[in-house]
């Protein structure tokens, strides 16, 4: 695998917004004084009349987005994951989720890869918080290509969507032939001994882990799950049946995220061992993002280790 090109999914988001508007789509973008960081600033520059800065008031931002959406105009609302899914959770639930309004909450700086800002800004809980809201679509794209497609797909569906985006530049995995579809997982590597299910920046690590495992004679299937809700249960159940063990990888708490979603599906349909690679039940900390991924055990080598554990439990 080549790592030559790296793009932060927040950058892909900003560009996708401009591309959507260039294509004539009518929508509004709101942000809470973080346009420069969430990259809605890219859109603001191109379409200043369709961008509204709400100021440092995330709860109000979500309420305003709901009000605008109630008039028929879709809204993209951005802040850091901590302050969107976290601080404004109840506004998202009651003002957006309950009335099923067309608000796309696109939250950047998710997970520990925020880096130096530390625990207060490292949201490892957002997938859990968002997927529990009825009717909410939750998407965690893996790279630049998938993010751009996911943003456009999120715009096209009617109803609330949460898109989880990152600060850190991550390898571009998919070329222009890749096709993202809401609710569909994608098998990236075929394999029969075990399945590695990954989302977000962990997809890249999962692919690296599969390479290592292959050299050791272990055939690992790799599935990219960008849409955490609704989960592609079919691809998960098939993997459980055919490979007999699953390792789920996410840059998120091991509580309530994709790992939990997969475990729910597997336990109800085809019980096999499900082992999680994620942030354990602890807060993040300051440091360079790459080092934090090492420290918190979110690397290919950690996946390899958990894969062997999963296989041992078959």
């Amino acid at each position, binding site marked *: 695998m080549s790592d030559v090109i790296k793009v932060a999914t927040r950058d892909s988001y900003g560009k996708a917004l401009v591309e959507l508007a260039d294509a004539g789509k009518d929508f*509004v973008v709101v942000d809470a004084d973080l346009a420069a960081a969430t990259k809605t600033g890219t859109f603001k520059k191109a379409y200043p009349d369709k961008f*509204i800065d709400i100021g440092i008031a995330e709860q109000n931002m979500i309420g305003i987005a709901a009000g605008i959406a109630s008039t028929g105009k879709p809204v993209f609302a951005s802040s850091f994951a901590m302050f969107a899914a976290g601080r404004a959770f109840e506004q998202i639930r009651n003002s957006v989720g309950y009335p099923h309004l067309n608000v796309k909450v696109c939250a950047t700086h998710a997970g520990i890869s925020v880096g130096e800002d530390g625990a207060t800004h490292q949201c490892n809980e957002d997938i859990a918080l968002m997927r529990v809201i009825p009717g909410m679509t939750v998407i965690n794209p893996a790279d630049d290509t998938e993010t751009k497609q996911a943003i456009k797909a999120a715009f096209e569906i009617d109803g609330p969507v949460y898109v989880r985006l990152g600060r850190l530049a991550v390898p571009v995995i998919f070329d222009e032939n890749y096709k993202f579809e809401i609710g569909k997982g994608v098998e990236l590597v075929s394999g029969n001994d075990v399945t590695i299910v990954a989302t977000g920046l962990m997809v890249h690590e999962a692919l690296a882990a599969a390479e290592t495992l292959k050299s050791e004679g272990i055939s690992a299937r790799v599935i990219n799950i960008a849409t955490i809700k609704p989960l592609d249960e079919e691809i998960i159940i098939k993997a459980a049946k055919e490979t007999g063990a699953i390792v789920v990888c996410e840059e998120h708490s091991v509580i309530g995220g994709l790992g939990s979603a997969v475990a729910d599906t597997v336990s109800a349909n085809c019980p096999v061992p499900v082992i999680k690679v994620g942030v354990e039940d602890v807060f993040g900390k300051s440091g360079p993002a790459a080092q934090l991924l090492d420290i918190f055990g979110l690397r290919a080598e950690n996946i390899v280790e958990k894969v062997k554990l999963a296989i041992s439990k078959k």
Partner: protein
Amino acid sequence: MTEIQKKELMKVATSVRMSIIEATHAAKSGHPGGSLSSADMATYLYFSRMNIDPENPKDPNRDRFVLSKGHAAPLLYSVLAHRGFFPTEELLKLRKPGSFLQGHPDMKHTPGVDMSTGSLGQGISAACGMALAAKLDNKDYHVYTILGDGESEEGQVWEAAMFAAAKNLDNLTVIVDWNNLQIDGTIEEVNSPLPFDKKFEAFNFNVVVIDGHNFDEIEKAIEIADNTKGRPTAIIMKTVKGKGVSFMENQINWHGSAPNDEQCEMALAELRATLESL
């Protein structure tokens, strides 16, 4: 407003109050006190001011109403029913399984409800969003929202107020139902949000203070609000919680409890007498 028009509004408001009593009695729960205190303003807006059409409740050019104090849902439902959005018989299904009249307003299922509310502090933000959308779309509709006095203890209210003035939302009118009572006591006892007028003035609102049970004052205030350019208006409306039913007036225990059979009869008899006197 002529004396005849005023009398007509008073009759409608009294009928609305009777429906509030009947609905909460039938539901055996709900919030009559704060529904009764806002009844005159809501009646005025829906029967005398707002550009709305019960036959076309989703008209994109309609005026909007957001009941930020969503627990006063019995009031909103009663006004909507009397205005023709749905049959008044539906009011007796309030809070019951299968009814489209949820405990708090649900825009997805109730004709005429412009925003789902109930979690305090959130409605005013949505109202700001609607007012902003009108500006973005060059539409001239107006957005009215009724806020509870206790509700203004929510920080989000002031985030929204700051935004409304900063973005010159002169098509937004925030109406504060100052009935002075919240669940745990008077608003001063609990965590005084007073003074409302100075606070909203400091947030760059145009501010009008009125008696919320006087239709002349209500009309004058709404006219000022509708004609103020460049900034939003806050109407601080002094009201009586439980207004119109003597044993409910200024009694905190009527915030969130429904009348029993006997109390319902007493309240309706009093309101019927009021209606006959008009």
